[in-house]
């Protein structure tokens, strides 16, 4: 005998402001198998849950329908609640009358109430057909993978390592350090970026629990939470790491000069190089695309000069496969390519530079030893224009979002310039100043009051060269007047964008990404460092534009989540997975092709049919890999594969409840 209880939640006024909850509860009393029905202000609250538990006892309920918010919000809450009352948690069915009803029909009270009643009727029909499901356990490998060796990756790795877990950092560049290594000073304290970063880099390199895999990339990710099998490509460095002493003679004598990526084209590096002097590991790589030996088979100077005999032109890429319990993705960001802006010269004007290029120019270890000079003629600039929101908040040519960091780093740039060149004028063109961090507004205040930066509210419409100046045209929107600055140097605060191959990595790992290719967190508020793939966490700007303090905080959060997973020998898995009916499965393999998680395989059955031994192939599901998406159930022609908790019978019962 199925005895259903219906619990309608007001969600404060979120639902009851539109839907007449009492009427819904009343209507539910007439649905088949419903023994009890009630509405309440906050079903998820302590008294609300008590109410459910008590009703289960008093009315001998064995199926529960909660009409409230999205199951993604509170399904676990109510599952735990009924479990405590002695029922199988999968006897709970949720009717989403908030996101699917009250929030989308705010002006149609009657219609919304009717729809809510329908949604509850459907949930009741399904609930009576729900089957008890049991969670199973899988073992967890106590080793973490951190992808990306910038500040976020380093922080996450250090936290995990300090908690006693073994961590591998995979970094595709020859050195760890990331973007922070390129930055001169950090806001709002103006302390030297390298001075606070390099100790952490050294700590990471020296930590007994951390392995650095630099110049390496992720090739393939298989497996599932607790047991990811990851293949890593260690690119041929052409240097024997265990032999090289990092003396640097090779880099001095190499005859090939190419634009340095680290110096953003403002200086040259050799074909055998470390990206920067404090690189970790402080051992070079050979850039085979530019090395004369690799291009023409001649030269070999580095090999001849190396006192340790560490140069090895014959090295090959190596593939390495390791098993990890958890993965932290910390792949960071790239800068927006502003050459789409014709009005700013399509990237053709040498004295229009990006904020990151400015960091190199003002950096004491940069290409000019910290002397600020224009790239074109090496003159010291007197009038400098900084333009905010280049590529940010621009639906037409850039990204719709705010990059969050630019207001602050522009204020920093302005202060640094005024500090170095006392008789300079700095004009910052901004649209809105966004300083919502601790000490940030005060930092902005100082850039105006102490350093005398001119702030002009308006977006620049055009930059064009006139003689040796750059004419910058904007509107001072507070004055309602067009303004022009004859600038010597223009610094563009370009947007933070996702790594160009962020989508490809996401597909390898099996995590989601948004329209801008930033990785999607499991919940924007309640699960900000988790992904929808269990065991994979996010840290830093790969999830969205972030400054250093936020990246570090998120990295530690991700590490804490990973610790939670790795600290147990095994974990419970979700039982909502697909199952194959081997009697009718024809072994056609369509489901294999359709499964996005590679969770289905074919196995061979040996049967005796009419006295004969017959072998045939059938599909089989790996419950650890299956995420319960149900794609295979739709693709199966014979209907031999079904998703537990969402069987055809259960879904059709809902449809019938609505339509019949």
């Amino acid at each position, binding site marked *: 005998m199925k005895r259903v209880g219906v619990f309608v939640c007001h969600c404060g006024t979120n639902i009851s402001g539109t839907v007449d909850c009492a009427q819904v509860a009343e209507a539910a009393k007439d649905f088949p198998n419903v023994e009890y029905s009630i509405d309440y202000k906050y079903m998820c609250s302590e008294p609300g849950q008590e109410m459910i538990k008590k009703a289960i006892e008093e009315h001998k309920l064995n199926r529960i329908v909660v009409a409230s918010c999205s199951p993604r919000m509170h399904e676990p809450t109510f599952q735990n609640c009924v479990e405590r009352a002695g029922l199988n948690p999968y006897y709970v069915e949720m009717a989403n009358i908030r996101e699917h009803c009250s929030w989308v029909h705010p002006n149609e009270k009657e219609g919304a109430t009717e729809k809510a009643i329908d949604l509850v009727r459907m949930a009741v029909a399904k609930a009576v057909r729900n089957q008890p499901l049991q969670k199973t356990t899988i073992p967890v490998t106590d080793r973490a993978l951190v992808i990306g060796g910038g500040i976020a990756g380093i922080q996450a790795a250090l936290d995990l390592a300090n908690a006693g877990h073994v961590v591998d950092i995979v970094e595709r560049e020859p050195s760890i350090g990331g973007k922070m290594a390129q930055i001169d000073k950090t806001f709002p304290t103006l302390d030297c970026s390298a001075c606070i970063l390099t100790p952490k880099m050294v700590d990471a390199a020296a930590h007994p629990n951390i392995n650095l895999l630099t110049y390496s990339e992720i090739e393939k990710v298989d497996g599932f939470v607790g047991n990811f099998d990851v293949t890593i490509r260690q690119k041929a460095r052409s240097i024997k790491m265990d032999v090289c002493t990092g003396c640097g003679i090779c880099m001095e004598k190499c005859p090939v000069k190419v634009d340095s990526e680290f110096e953003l084209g403002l200086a040259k590096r050799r074909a055998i190089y470390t990206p920067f002097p404090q690189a970790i590991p402080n051992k070079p790589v050979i850039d085979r695309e530019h090395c004369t030996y690799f291009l023409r088979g001649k030269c070999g100077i580095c090999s001849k000069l190396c006192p340790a005999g560490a140069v090895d032109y014959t090295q090959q890429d190596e593939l390495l496969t390791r098993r990890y319990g958890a993965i932290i993705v910390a792949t960071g960001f790239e800068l927006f390519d502003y050459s789409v802006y014709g009005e700013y010269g*399509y990237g053709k004007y040498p004295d229009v530079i990006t904020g990151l290029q400015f960091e190199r120019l003002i950096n004491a270890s940069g290409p000019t030893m910290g002397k600020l000079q224009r790239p074109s003629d090496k003159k010291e600039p007197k009038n400098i224009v900084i333009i905010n929101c280049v590529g940010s908040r621009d639906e037409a040519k850039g990204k719709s979002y705010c990059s969050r960091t630019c207001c602050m780093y522009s204020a920093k740039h302005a202060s640094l310039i005024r500090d170095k060149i006392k008789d300079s004028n700095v004009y910052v063109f901004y649209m809105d100043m966004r300083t919502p961090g601790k000490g940030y507004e005060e930092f902005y205040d100082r850039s105006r009051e102490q350093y005398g930066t001119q702030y002009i509210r308006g977006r620049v419409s055009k930059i*064009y060269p*006139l003689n040796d100046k750059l004419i910058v045209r904007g509107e001072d929107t507070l004055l309602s007047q067009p303004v022009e600055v004859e600038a010597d140097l223009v610094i563009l605060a370009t947007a933070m964008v996702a790594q160009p191959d962020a989508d490809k990595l996401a597909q390898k790992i099996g995590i989601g990404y948004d329209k801008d290719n930033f990785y999607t967190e499991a919940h924007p508020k309640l699960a900000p460092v988790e992904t929808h793939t269990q065991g994979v966490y996010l840290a830093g700007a790969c999830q969205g534009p972030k400054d250093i303090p936020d990246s570090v905080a998120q990295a530690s959060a991700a590490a804490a989540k990973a610790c939670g997973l790795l600290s147990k020998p095994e974990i419970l898995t979700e039982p909502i997975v697909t199952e194959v009916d081997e009697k009718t499965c024809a072994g056609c393999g369509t489901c294999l092709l359709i499964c996005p998680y590679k969770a289905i395989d074919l196995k061979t059955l040996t049967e005796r049919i009419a006295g004969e031994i017959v072998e045939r192939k059938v599909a089989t599901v790996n419950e650890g890999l299956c995420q319960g998406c149900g794609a295979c159930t739709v693709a199966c022609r014979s209907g031999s594969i079904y998703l537990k908790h969402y069987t055809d019978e259960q879904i059709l019962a809902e449809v019938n409840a609505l339509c019949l």
Partner: protein
Amino acid sequence: MKYAYYPGCSLSSTGIEYDMSTREIAKVLGIELWEIPEWNCCGASSAHLTDHLLALALPARNLAIAEEAGLDVAIPCAACYARSKATEVAVNESEEMKKTIQEVIERKYEGKSKARALLEIIGESVQGDHIKERIHILLTGLKAACYYGCLLVRPASTAFDDPEDPQSMDQLLHLFGAETVDWSYKTECCGASHETSAKPEIGISILQKIFIAAQNAGANCLVTACPLCMNNLDMRQIEVEKYFSTKYNLPVFYFTELVGLALGIEPSKLGLNKHFVDAMPLVQEVLNRKGGEQA
């Protein structure tokens, strides 16, 4: 290739040399131009400031006649092109607007006949090796500041070239041996709409900036694809020179005149003697090089 030809009002008066040179080079390049019989003014640039429907309907009649003949329309004037393109787009975007326009012009126009800028058509026609045989004179010594103006490459959604730094005219002239300068006023408005109406004083300072920018870029002439720009840059140049007591001496050409010159057409047939800023000395300079630079 055959096109319906829409010269527009300016090309039969102030822009007559644009018409002359267009017809001449079309002959040489094998482009057949069929002048739309009894074409009417497209309304630029007054109708769209007076009534939306009128602005769409006036060009629609011309397009309808071309569509009946099964031809796309070649339009030299940038303003006429912009208005005609707007009509073509409006008819293709909305069935309702198509119906309304058809009722107003009392003709059928389905949006099939396309409005095309002459610059784009000429640019296409000179692609390939065959053009090399047709070049009589290389335009060596010309340092042209290509001035596209505002209406040829805007709005961006329908433009055939980049609205901030278009290249089609530059590439065309390179083909004929001219140098073009990299400058930042290619698509800055010249204020012609105020010249033709009633606010010439607004135009003077706009024009000054264009002349200075062209000079600074090292240009010895301006090249345009719009009779309104031409009028403004050529006729008003002397006025601007007087106003600021300076001398720019920048002859202004239609791109068709220069193409014609390179194809060996006589300057007078191209209307090169009809300019306000005397273009003939520069033309003569180019022609005098003929001996050494003949292609």
